[in-house]
């Protein structure tokens, strides 16, 4: 059995009186791709915010590679090896595409003021490595984000490309666990099919373990080993895609959404 990379125990968070997450138990094994589904407002993004240190849980524990990451600042969590994307695409819009990916290597590099001022060999070497790594990561998405695009500001990108750049930026932090928040939202079927493929490659070629929030059931079905359904901050069901999607409670939670039709196809 592979190792537990992420282990979440009895995790709860409340905003005022609202229980955004309630007594959540959840784990991810090394090399898994886990899909997180659930209706709007179920607490999925809150769940990511908590793992990445942006929200502090009111109780419970999060173990990453056996060590608690509760109370760590987001940058420390990233340093430990967890990286994320944002549901509402939050790129550094006025930095170039290359810079977006270069800046997220911050916690893996160390040159400071002296190196920059005296242009030391160490500084030059590190800059070169940062740049090369950035180009390598961007090259993962084909030619869309490299070449002449490298020096363009992120704000000129199309929506789909912004999503790709978000993923690239998260990849560049060299994480072991990658949290993707609705990676294909707003993409057309062709684009999302292609990204589904790439998500598979993120595991097979880059060795990332992945937790992915997604509303698009086709994507969830195609790529996840295991699916967790949240509703009102609670786990409704866990298991394979078939098990979860046929769970009556899940179907109820999704009532009004074409889950049955999709899962039947």
């Amino acid at each position, binding site marked *: 059995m592979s190792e537990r990379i992420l282990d979440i125990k009895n995790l709860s968070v409340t905003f005022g009186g609202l229980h955004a997450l309630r007594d959540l138990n959840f784990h991810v094994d090394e090399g898994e791709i886990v899909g997180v589904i659930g209706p709007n407002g179920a607490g999925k993004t809150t769940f990511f915010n908590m793992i990445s240190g942006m929200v502090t849980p009111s109780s419970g524990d999060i173990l990453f590679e056996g060590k608690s990451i509760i109370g760590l600042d987001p940058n420390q969590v990233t340093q430990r090896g967890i990286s994320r994307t944002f549901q509402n695409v939050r790129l550094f819009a006025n930095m170039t595409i290359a810079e977006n990916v270069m800046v997220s290597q*911050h*916690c893996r590099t160390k040159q400071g003021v002296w190196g920059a001022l005296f242009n030391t060999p160490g500084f030059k070497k590190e*800059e070169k490595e940062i740049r090369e790594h950035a180009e390598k990561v961007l090259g993962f998405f084909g030619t869309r984000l490299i070449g002449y695009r490298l020096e363009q500001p992120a704000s*000129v990108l199309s929506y789909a490309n912004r999503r790709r750049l978000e993923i690239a930026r998260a990849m560049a932090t060299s994480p072991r666990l990658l949290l993707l928040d609705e990676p294909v939202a707003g993409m057309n079927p062709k684009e999302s099919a292609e990204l589904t493929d790439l998500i598979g490659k993120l595991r097979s070629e880059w060795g990332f373990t992945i937790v992915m929030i997604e509303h698009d059931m086709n994507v969830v079905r195609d790529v996840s080993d295991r699916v967790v359904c949240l509703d009102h901050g609670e786990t409704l069901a866990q298991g394979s895609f078939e098990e979860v999607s046929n769970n009556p409670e899940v179907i109820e939670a999704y009532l009004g959404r074409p889950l049955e039709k999709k899962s039947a196809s």
Partner: protein
Amino acid sequence: MSATIATDTAGQGMPEAVSKGAFDLDWANVAKSGSIAALIMTFIALSGMPDGLDARPIVDGVRVLTIGYLTLFAVPLAFGWMIGNEVVLEGMVATKRGPRDLVAGAAVGALGGVGLTLLVVLMSNFDLRDPLVNWSPQLFNLLTFDSGVGVGVWVWILIGAVLGAIGASLRLLPAKIRRAVIVMFLTVVGFSVLQGLIDDIVGNVGETIRDPGRFSEFFGEGDTPRPRVDSVFDPVINFIYSQTGGLKLVGAIVLALVAGALSLSGRGRIKAAKASYNAKTGPERTKQTSIMIGITAVLLILLPFFSGKIVNELLANVGIFLLLALGLNIVVGLAGILDLGYVAFFAVGGYTTAVLTAPKPGDAWPEWLPTLPWWGALLVTVVFAAITGLMIGAPVIRMRGDYLAIVTLGFGEIIRLLFLSDWLKGYFGGAQGITNIPAADFGPLGTVSGVDPRSVFYLVLVFCALAIYVSWRLERSRLGRAWMAIREDESVAEAMGINTVNVKLMAFVVGAVLASFSGAIFSAKVGSIFPSSFLILVSIIILVVVIVGGMGNIMGVIVGALVLIGVLGGPKQPGLLQEFSEYKLLIYGALLIWMMLKRPEGLVPNVRRSRELHQDEFLQDAWLKGEVDTDDEDGELATEVAPA
């Protein structure tokens, strides 16, 4: 509203502009703009500017062409120009330019003039001198052109209408001609305003060309003063300038014509040169850059020899504030931390240097306090500034935006009050400050003190060059990228692994160190420092320099410092336009408001910053030009075509 909505959007390309009748205007808007113009003109008149600056002729002999009158004339001109501004959004059709613009301009200008007419009428009937100090007979005479109420009641309406129409007519000119006209106007005004400077420098250069021996005198080596010789440029200067101040009429016309001709013929060339420079890459570009830097350096080193003492003093002041602005630019422009207490580091730099170099800074200091040479004190000052940066930074750095601004403002005052306090009077002299600060001695290189502004200029030049180098290197480094990321979105920057606290503290410390250099030079230059040299006003003026110049842009900050500090003057230092000193803050404020509304990216914009501030327009423009990547097909194809 007469906004035009496109009825035909099916057609390809840009729709035809519609033409409208001359009086088919948005009259409500004209009335609104006109009233604003009237208010502004009345305000300017009562601020005392026209009267105070009336003594500065632009063209000698033409009564109304003085800087004083210009402050009033500028308003209808500007409003006439602005009223023709039409926002054309997607799906809207532009209106054809034509007599309609002239009518609108004239109407706005005339309405503006009505403001002054009312003022004239009121002034002739009431005396409100008590609350309004400038409600004076002089102003009355100025407004009525010495011809009494009879003229005063109509003349400004006429002037307003004519100037408004002229302003609007600029819109009708082809872009190239319009640019030439504006260049001509600015050249004439600029030459007249900078008369002292030009006279001084050109005169000295001319004298040196005639008598090269004078050059050695600049080094203080000539034993006896050499006899005065005529400058070779005297004929030119005498042709342009009148003895009594201002341009000669013929000189002004010739200047304008030359400027216009240069603008028409030169622009293409400047553009081409720029393009060829930008097209160069690698070593060739480095070479060209080095040549340009070299030429600038030589010019800057030679400049003080040819400019008089007053100009050198001014340049030294510009340098001191430029150094501060460059430091603040790292904090505000790059890292996006709005520090309103920046003057604190300037004060710490100044006081530390003063305490360490003055023979007897205060009674309370222990015996062992050394008296160091300036450069020795500088080393300690840097350390002290860095520590102060950390100490002020640590508690405030976790705050964001407005909160941080307010708290830094408080810290800036606290530092000044500490220096002012009776509690530390034995150390810092309270309100009396520290007075016996010696000149900075650099051995064989000479000494730097306030009596020799040229030496201060050189010292400041060295440190500004250092600050520019530091900004330039850091901007392109790991740290600089982290600063930019924080400026863009702090939470995301943190989530991407940037330790925002450390990185922001670093910006604070680098800024503090640069400010302390400035403080150290300041204390050696002035020879005495008081808490009153470090008012909040300093922070604010530096911030205005950074904002007006163009946040995050080194070139912009330099231009900002030259224009604001050089021409208008620093918080206490006079600028080139001494007459403006009284209105300095008014102009600073007005400029800041205008810049924030119309050009938030500053005079010399940082490309990024400008994009950030005009996001919508930028995106729309880019979309219209087809630059935005609207779909993925290109990428798709490229991936498929590219061999795996």
